[in-house]
């Protein structure tokens, strides 16, 4: 599917315990770590709350908790969508934009199935708030190859059968592609390091190493 999908039509609904101004007293207190017994000490907390949402200095941007519209720069295109502060980049891509090439598997930044690039740097999109991707160049697996044409690395993955179930594959490709951008002549040790954060349960590792080294060889020949 192309990355030109329009943003997901439905607005995520705000949680019920919010006021239009922002967080409720209860949510505010919970976040402040104050127990019910301590509330007596905070007469006027409502007033404080209103203060926090008064006009803020220019060097602070306030977000949420309600959804708001952002523009993210993804695969060379501007994409508008609604997010909340708690929306991760993975959620924004997968649910907000129907860009499901990026996978979520562990949701804790350990398996790297969710690898995307921020300014060409591989990161775990499940552990990145979408807010933190504003203003950055985001590259996803959908952006690695335009339309039907595979990049040499992707073709090498297919040729070497570095793919089994395919769930870890986008993350592997993103990690290996980032390596080749930075180091066109990697050793096997370099490849192992580059994917040391990518988990694969089917066991594609040996062929991921081979495919990446093969692609590097091809790129070297072209250059």
């Amino acid at each position, binding site marked *: 599917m192309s990355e030109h999908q329009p943003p997901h039509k439905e607005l995520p609904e705000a*949680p019920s315990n919010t006021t239009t101004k922002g967080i409720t007293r209860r949510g505010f207190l919970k976040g402040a770590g104050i127990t019910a017994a301590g509330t007596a000490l905070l007469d006027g907390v409502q007033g404080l709350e209103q203060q926090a949402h008064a006009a803020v200095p220019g060097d602070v941007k306030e977000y949420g908790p309600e959804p708001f519209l952002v523009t993210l720069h993804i695969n060379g295109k501007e994409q508008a969508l609604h997010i909340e502060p708690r929306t991760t980049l993975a959620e924004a891509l997968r649910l907000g934009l129907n860009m499901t090439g990026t*996978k979520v598997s562990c949701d*804790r930044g350990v398996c790297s199935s969710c690898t995307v690039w921020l300014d060409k740097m591989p990161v775990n999109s499940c552990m990145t708030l979408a807010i933190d991707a504003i203003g950055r160049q985001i590259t996803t697996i959908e952006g690695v190859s335009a339309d039907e044409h595979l990049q040499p690395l992707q073709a090498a993955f297919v040729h070497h059968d570095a793919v089994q*179930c395919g769930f870890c594959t986008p993350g592997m490709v993103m990690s290996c592609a980032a390596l080749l951008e930075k180091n066109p002549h990697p050793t096997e040790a370099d490849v192992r390091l580059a994917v040391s954060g990518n988990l694969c349960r089917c066991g594609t590792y*040996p062929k991921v190493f081979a495919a990446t080294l093969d692609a590097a060889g091809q790129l070297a020949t072209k250059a």
Partner: protein
Amino acid sequence: MAIHTPHSASDALIGAAADKNDPAMKTAKMPIGIPGFTLHEEERSVPVSEPPVWPVNKDLSCVGRPQERWDGKAKVTGRARFTADVQLPGMLYARFLNSTVPHAKIISIDTSEAGSHPGVKSVHVIEKLLGSAVLRDPSLEQNRYPVVRYVGQPIAAVAATTPHAAEEAAAKIKVKYESMPFVVDQDMAREPNAALVFPGAADEAGTAGGGGSASDTLQSGNIHGPAITRQGDAEQGFKEADVIVDARYTTQVQTHCALETHGVVADWKPDLLTVYASTQGTASVREELAAYFQLPVSKIRVITEFVGGGFGAKFGAGNHGVVAASLSRTAGMPVRLMLDRAEEHVSSGNRPSSDQRLRIGAKKDGTLTAIQLISFGTAGCGTGAGCAGPAQNLYKCATLHVEENDVFINAGPASAFRAPGHPQGVFALEQSIDELAARLNIEPLDLRDRIDENPARRVERQLVRESALWKSRNQIPNADRGVIKRGIGFAQGVWYRNVSMNSAAEVRVHKDGSVEVLSAVQDIGTGIKTVLAQIVAEQFGMPPASVEVKIGDTNYPVGPESGGSTTTASITPAARDAAWQAAQKFLATVAPALGVKPDDLTLSDGMVRSASSKFQPIAFRSAAAKMDIDQVSAQARRVPDYAPKKYDTIGGVDVAEVAVDTETGRIHVKHVLAVHDCGRPMNPGQLVSQINGGVIQGISYTLFENRLLDPDYGIMVNSDLDKYKIAGSYEIPKIEVQLTESYIGQSSTDASGIGEPGGIIATPAAIANAFYNATRIRIRQLPMTPDVVLAALNQPQPSMESL
């Protein structure tokens, strides 16, 4: 053996005499054995409708050759849509509320606050729980809600317009528990005064992937068993032995860790329930939903285009499937319910543990006189911990005594996990056999030659002998003097050539020359899609990339489950037969327009050719244009094995080289040589990938993985991929795979399976035997983490005589 002739309509008669006794059968001469070693020809009696016999792979043009994965492109571009990626208009997101206590009666469940949370469209409370063992006498536990038997057991679920809303709402479900005593330690659970997981005998049905136990098995406390298997008089056998090896082995609980968790998207419409499922068995999902909702199977459609790993855990609809369907029915909208990683670890299945006491008796010349295995293992609140398969099936032994016991604990139920019982059983058996070899002063491969009758493994052992790796092995253990000790060890495994008759395929030829193959079988990463394309391509004489493969949908002809290593053995003959029949029909359809008799026509290299010299070869597509109907198709189901009971096992041998750091206790696996047979290899590249996967899972199981339950609270403390440790890129050795073609003359493709025999069964034992070779110390427990290794190395060294 004759060189393969291109497909011909008259091949049914060439070189095949009709069986005199049964006109429905004919005699076929098939290649049997291992090329280069034992290849010969045998006759089989096969149905007349069967296609001509295929020669060995070197004489085929597509099957058996490297062929890129059919859906590789979709996977490397991120276009492949897994169940977790399916988005339907109006789709809701569901989330479970799971128990926080290990054993309790549920007094009440209040979903009112959850139900009124913004965005929530439906709520479901579980009253019938799938997966755990079930009391033989249900009257022992009478309650509206299922008894909670482990922390993390699903209790209820909500469906809401956003995942966040569902998460928040689920947290608002209020459950009142009446806690009961619990036990999560397997040894404690065996004690007479242990807390009881079930108040009476409980049984679990086996799944397509294995497990389960007979419903008359004894149960005493939490011990469900023994299931006893006897052959001859083992006690007598031990009396006749010159040498007895007797040892205890323990292995841990392992979780599957498929990268895509269990889950479905269920879309309940008035006339049809459509379920997108991350499953190894589209039919199994459909059946379980039909039974649960009392629907005809024809009102349920299951779609599985891509699956992010299964490894045995993904059969049936599961609680997530029936709950998502219920939520969808109530909400009137599609519902996606995917487990999160913690739920996946806790409630979606695991490989049971094992505690095995294994005794082997042998004569001086190695002949086995007796094998006795008493095993206990926990499958949580389920059953299926048996691991006696290897003891029963790997070696020839006159007598056998096996007792398998399940031990209930308050933990998530097990499910089949890649060769259920076999890594555990082989870990024990192959170490004891190696120990026997040392005691008898017989070389380990030579001992196997004496006691293992399997012809394929004999050849595989010979290939091991000739390998550079094995030749570099020190025969005397503990040869290295330094801190890092190298060792090389051998082990072998057995699996079973199961076939599912629930296998059918349809091949369609269209007037524009396009050809497609359809089956409800699913591809869980094993590559069956590619193999189906290769088969049709071979039969039609066209490139595999031009064959359209449509699978993973119950709208298509029934397909086998992807478990038990049965897929390739089951579906490929059906696909070939369908291709053969469709090609015959196609040729019969176009022959009149081409002015020739169909019997004269053949298909090869994208062309239609004729034996008759008057006929100019014509491109397939041009011939198809002459069809007098838009589509010609044939559907075929798998016919039974030609010679059942013969060659009913598949297997292989593994050699592992390790470097043991005797100061840190860390084991580094440097090199694994895997020599395996799988009938006719259909796609060598994909087979190597499968074996790599099995080896790597075997290494991971041996060195790192462990499902850890806090003993005081019953909570799994490592329900993530951070502290539940699976092999990563630095843990991967050099893996060398040798595929042994092993023709057994069982079907029109003669392919078997590889998923289970390939790597995971014997690698742990090979590593353990390599450890012994490196250090002269046996580690009889898994996982071999540094603390275990250091403790073993710290032991006072046994004297030479007792080895």
